[in-house]
């Protein structure tokens, strides 16, 4: 543990506080935006964009993914692919369905 490392960390502390502030503000924003009378599609898009942005702030800084090792990026990329598969393929199967469309 060198001094440079300690110095490094104290620099990070400032970014933690900034991220916290951003998360708090975005929480207010998402609640405020939800009070508008959007269509469902637009409301989903806006809410998910804000949530994704918040989530990536947490992952990048609190979970320090910005400076993480390559193996972890690979792992998360793989997981992300299967996550997308898991979300969209059952949905696709339901929408492309013979018979009564409303009952999946």
């Amino acid at each position, binding site marked *: 543990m060198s001094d440079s490392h300690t110095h490094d960390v104290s620099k990070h502390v400032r970014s933690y506080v900034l991220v916290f502030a951003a998360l708090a503000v975005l929480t207010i924003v998402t609640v405020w935006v939800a009070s508008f009378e959007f269509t469902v599609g637009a409301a989903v898009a806006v809410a998910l964009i804000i949530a994704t942005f918040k989530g990536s702030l947490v992952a990048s800084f609190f979970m320090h993914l910005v400076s993480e090792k390559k193996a972890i990026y690979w792992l998360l990329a*793989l997981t992300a692919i299967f996550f997308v598969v898991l979300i969209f393929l059952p949905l696709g199967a339901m929408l492309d369905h013979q018979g009564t469309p409303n*009952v*999946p």
Partner: protein
Amino acid sequence: MSHSADAVSHADAHAHHEESFWRKYVFSIDHKVIGIQYAITSLLFLFFGFCLMMLMRWQLAFPYEPIPLIGSLLSESMAPGGIMSPEFYNSLGAMHGTIMVFLGVVPLAVGAFGNFVVPLQIGAPDMAFPKLNMSSYWVYAAGGVVMLASFFAPGGAANSGWTSYPPLSDIATTGQTMWLLGMVLLITSSLLGSVNFIVTIIQLRAPGMTWMRLPFFVWAQLVTAFLLLLAFPPLEAAGVLQLMDRLAGTSFFLPTGLVVSGEALSVSGGGSPLLWQHLFWFLAHPEVYVLILPAMGIVAEIIANNTRRPLFGYRSLVFSTIFLGFMSFIVWAHHMFLTGMGTSISTFFQTTTMIISVPSVVILSALFLSLWGGSIRFTTPMLFALGFLPMFGIGGLTGLPLGLSATDIPLHDTYYVIGHFHYVVAPGTILALFAGIYYWFPKATGRKMNDRLGKLHFWGTITFMNVIFMPMFIQGLAGVSRRLYDGGAQYAHAAPVLEWNVVMSIGAWALAIAQIPFFINFFRSMFKGEKVKDGNTWEATTLEWSAAPSPPIAHGNFETVPSVYRGPYEYSAPGFPQGYAPQNAPEKA
């Protein structure tokens, strides 16, 4: 120098420090002991699952006749008057599948062989998280106990098939709740295990053990661990949802307006039975590769060792395995062609299914080609490994018609499907697992198993397995459905192929008799088997044989940390005195 001195003092410290019986054999954190615990437990479950099937085979061959001997031992609800009740038949079917897959084959292939062999083959002192390893065994054991206890639940054990499709399973008896709880425990256990395997393989490889020097078995286990890690959680989620349906009255899998026994069910409805099928097969298709990949790994090790030459196309084996693992996540809905699936999605899943058969064929071909020009030693493990190749070939090729919807639609849920996946898992995987037992038994005990009994075991097993499973294709092509209480006796279209039921049942009971040499061999060899003189009884190149004594030292495996200088299968190395080059032998011997 200082390294080896350090290791010696370590060994001394261990010799002086006696562990209690409990720490050493029961709550051990040594991967070798845990591996053996897994092996014994899962072999018992395999035997138990097989017994369930032998009971069912009586009802299939001789419907409505009292079961001899055992019939009178069963409770009144299971077999009134010694005749198997339909409910009990359903329980046996569901629990046979569950036990064989989740409590038998996977724990043996991954928990036992993975645990015992992987750290030794990569030159690691243990798994990365020994205590986690111990807890995954005990969580698995708890899951097994819950599953066994469910036979005594009111209404008997789970009886909605091993796939537990709702809405049937949502309204089934208490046994289904216990099945779900058992599954949650088993899933947790394999999650803990897979995290441990991946970290061990990535982090604890010995110096010089680069990725392309890993034995193929380790690669197979690594890909398997990733499948378990990422495919099992969706089934855990589905299990939680079904538990909510059963315990909290929700309707995740219950559609609106469901009528049961002439009465409308008083639930909110709005759920989707197909949701369960998606989540279930999201796991259960990769699970097929969890069953087969470790078996391929075992077979590859044994073939290289007994042909005395390098595996054909090591790199293509590795990349095929990785590709296979990846693709296995996007083929699952070929189990669901009959659910009213539209043509676009169906085309997608048919295409991916055809694509995934390519790496499987590459692997099988590479293993076949590895035999070319080798001076084959027909040892017992090699016989089992050789038996695996054509059996898995039959299992794999009969799967192709099931992956195309035009041919799947008439074959779906017939005995053809049963024949297909049993060829993959029973004469396929289970033969490979036996091969692994014969191959690594000397490593675990320091004694070899008897060759004569081993060969007797092999010929009996492979013969009767074919007697059981080959007629299933005939029945299935004639359109006989699976899960029929009387084996099809009440259907006219089944009449011409009905007599095969008796043949298959006799085959199943004969298969049990064929296992007697194995039981005798297993227990006798433990105490009376031929002692392994130097550790490396098979003259193998991989670290578990070339760098560690048999059995390896408790807690630490190796006296000194081995260094790796070359790939895993250099069996023809003229510069070396024995003619082969162990991975840990320096350049100039």
